[in-house]
C-alpha cells in the first residue's frame, strides 16, 4: 500500500466511523442513565428510513435528520414503557426492539428501495481544510461529520461539569440515592432513553442521507450491534467511543483499499477483519480490567427501579 493512500484512507475511516459514532454515543447516553438498550440496530434503521422519507418529501435533509432522531426516540420509547413502567427484562425488551425496528423499516421501506433523496453534500471548512494532512482527513466532509466532532467533548462536559449530567449519572449508578436526593430516577432514565435514541437515529440518518443518498432494507448492516459493543470497549467514555468508531471504520476502509491496490490475501479474510477486531478489542478491554470494565459500567446498568415501599 502506497503512502499516498494513507490520507484518503484516514478520511474514509472518519466517514465510515461517523454513523457508528453517533449510535455509540446514543447508546452510551442511555446506558449512563442505567438502561441497557440492545435495540440500537432497530432504532438506527428506523431512523435511516424516517430521514430518507422526510428528506424526499420535504426536500430538506435537516428536517430528515430531525425526523430520524424523533422516530428512533419514539421506537426507543417502547423500551422505556416496557422497562421503566412494567419493569420488563431490559435485555429481552431491547432484542425485541431490534427485531421490531428492522421488520418495521423493511415493511414500510420496501416500496422506496432504489429511490433517491436529497442529502448532505461534503464541503470544505474554510481555513481548517487548508491545514496539511489534517485538513484533508478531517475537514472535507459533510455537516454531520462536523457535528459528530463536537459531541464527545460536549458529552464529557455534560457528565462531568453540569448538574443534569450528574443527576443522569446518579440514575445509572444508584437510583435510590438519586431518589433520596429529591430527584426522580424514572424521569431521568426516560431522558436517557429518549435523548440516546435521538442520537442513534442520527447515526441511521447518516447512512441514508450522507454516506449514500439511497434507501435499502437492512441499510445498517449490523452497525447498531457494533455500537453496542463499542460502548463496552470505550468503558462508557465519549473520547474512547470516538477512537473506537474510527478504528472500526478505518479497518473497514482499509480492507477495501488493500483489495483495490491488488493484494493476494483472500478477500474473505480481509472482510472478516473489522468484526474480528471488534471481538478482540472487547476481549482485551474485558481482560485488562477484570475490575476496570465492570467498574466503568454504571453500577445499576440493566437493573430496573423497583417501586419503593
Amino acid at each position, binding site marked *: 500500500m502506497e503512502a499516498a493512500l494513507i490520507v484518503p484512507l484516514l478520511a474514509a475511516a472518519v466517514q465510515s466511523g461517523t454513523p457508528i459514532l453517533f449510535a455509540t454515543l446514543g447508546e452510551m447516553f442511555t446506558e449512563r442513565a442505567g438502561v441497557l438498550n440492545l435495540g440500537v440496530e432497530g432504532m438506527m434503521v428506523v431512523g435511516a428510513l424516517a430521514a430518507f422519507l422526510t428528506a424526499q418529501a420535504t426536500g430538506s435533509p435537516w428536517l430528515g435528520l430531525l425526523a430520524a432522531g424523533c422516530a428512533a426516540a419514539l421506537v426507543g420509547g417502547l423500551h422505556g414503557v416496557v422497562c421503566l413502567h412494567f419493569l420488563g427484562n431490559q435485555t429481552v425488551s431491547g432484542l425485541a426492539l431490534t427485531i421490531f425496528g428492522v421488520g418495521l423499516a423493511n415493511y414500510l421501506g*420496501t416500496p422506496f428501495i432504489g429511490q433517491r433523496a436529497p442529502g448532505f453534500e461534503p464541503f470544505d471548512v474554510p481555513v481548517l481544510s487548508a491545514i496539511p494532512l489534517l485538513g484533508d482527513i478531517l475537514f472535507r466532509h459533510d455537516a454531520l461529520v462536523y457535528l459528530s466532532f463536537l459531541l464527545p467533548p460536549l458529552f464529557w462536559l455534560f457528565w462531568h461539569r453540569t448538574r443534569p449530567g450528574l443527576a443522569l449519572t446518579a440514575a445509572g449508578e444508584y437510583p435510590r440515592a438519586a431518589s433520596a436526593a429529591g430527584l426522580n430516577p424514572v424521569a431521568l432514565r426516560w431522558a436517557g432513553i429518549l435523548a440516546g435514541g435521538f442520537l442513534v437515529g442520527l447515526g441511521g440518518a447518516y447512512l441514508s442521507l450522507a454516506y449514500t443518498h439511497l434507501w435499502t*432494507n437492512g441499510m445498517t448492516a449490523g452497525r447498531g450491534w457494533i455500537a453496542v459493543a463499542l460502548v463496552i470497549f470505550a468503558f462508557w467514555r465519549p473520547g474512547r467511543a470516538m477512537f473506537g468508531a474510527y478504528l472500526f471504520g478505518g479497518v473497514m*476502509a482499509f480492507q477495501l483499499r488493500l483489495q483495490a491496490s491488488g493484494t493476494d490475501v483472500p478477500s474473505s479474510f480481509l472482510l472478516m477483519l473489522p468484526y474480528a477486531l471488534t471481538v478482540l478489542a472487547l476481549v482485551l478491554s*474485558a481482560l485488562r480490567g477484570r475490575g476496570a470494565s465492570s467498574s466503568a459500567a454504571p453500577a445499576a446498568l440493566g437493573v430496573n427501579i423497583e417501586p419503593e415501599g
Partner: protein
Amino acid sequence: MRGFRLIALLLCLAALPLLAACGEDKAENKPAPQAAPAQAEPAAEPQAAPAQGAQGEDAKIGFIYVSPTGDAGWSYSHDVARKVIEEMPGVTTSFVESVPEGPDAERVILNMARKGFKAIFATSYGYMDSMEKVAKEFPEIAFMHCSGYKTGPNMTAYFGRMYEARYLSGMVAGAMSKTGKLGYAAAFPIPEVIRGINAFALGAQAVNPAAEVRVVWTKTWYDPAKEKEAAKSLLDVGCDVIAQHQDSPGPQEAAQERGVYSIGYHTDMTAFAPKAHLTAPIWNWTPFYKDAVEKILAGTWQHQALWPGLAEGTVDLAPFGEMVPQDVRDMVLAKKQEIVDGKYKVFTGPVFDQAGKQMVPDEQVAEDKDLLGMTWFVKGVVGTTE
C-alpha cells in the same frame, strides 16, 4: 462481570440481524376471477386448493424473486417482463418477492404448484434444488429456473449471456479511461461474476491493450454504503472508470462525486449518476419470457438448458451517455452487430490468465461449460478470485 455477560450475549446476537433482515414476503395478485382467496402469501394458506385447469379460465403464471421488485436491479428486470406477460390474453400472473433461498422457497413453489399454476419462474440460483424437488411431483407444470444448471422433463435451466454485453461495456470503459485503470466493484467470487469481469477486461483491452481492471469484492449484493466505499477505494488507487456487479447504485454515486465515469448494471442507472453513467450492460427478459409462455401454453415448449444472449435480445447495452463520442459509439455498436450475427465471440483465443498461462488456444472459442465454471481471471485483471 456484567461486561463479560454482555460480551457473550453480543457474540451470540451478531447473527441476529441476518435473520431479521430476511424481511417481509409480499405478494401481489390480480383480483382473481373466482371468489377464492387467491393470495400467494407463502404462510397464509395451509390448505391446498385443488388444481384446476377448467376451460375459459386464465392460465396462471407464477414468479418467485429473491429481492424486492422495486430495487431497479435483478428482480426488477424480471418483473418488467412479467408485466408484459400479464397483458397477454388468457394469462394471469402473480409473484412473490423477497423469498429467502432454502425451505421457504420450496414452500412458495409448492404452494403455486398446488394452486394449478401452468408455469413457475424462479429467478435465483438457490431455488434450484427446491424447484427440482417440486418439479418431480407435478409433471404437468412447467418449471423454469434461472441461473442454475439442473434440468428435467418439465424443468428448464435458463440464464443470459450477460458477459457479451459486459464485453461491450468494457470497450466503452477502455475508450473513455485516461489512466487505463478501470475499477470493478464486485459482489461474490462466483463464476457468473468472474466471467463478467473477464469479459469486461477483454473488451477494455480490445480498445486499449494496456488497460487493467482492479477488482474489489464486497461480499454483498445490495449494501449501498459498502459498495460506494468499495468504489471510492478503487478511485483512490487511480481508477477513472467504475464498473460494478452489484445491485445497488452506490458505486455510481461515488463516480459522479469524484467527477469520473461509471458503467451501471442490470438496468439503465443514468438517473443515479447522470454525469458519470456511460452505459450499462442490462437485462431484457421480455422476448425470452414471452416466447416461453406462448410455447408452454401451446404445449410446444422443450425443456432444456438455454443461454440466450445479445442475439436473442436477452442482454443489451443501455443508451450511451452524452459524453460518449460518436466514434466510440460506432465502434461498440459495430462489435455488437458482429456478436449478434455470430461473427465474433467473446473469449476467442488467445486468452491468457493472470499468470500468463494460455487458457484458450489461438483461434478457438472457450466452451460454454468452461465459461459456466470459470474461476480464474484473465491477464490484466488485478485482484484475487478467493
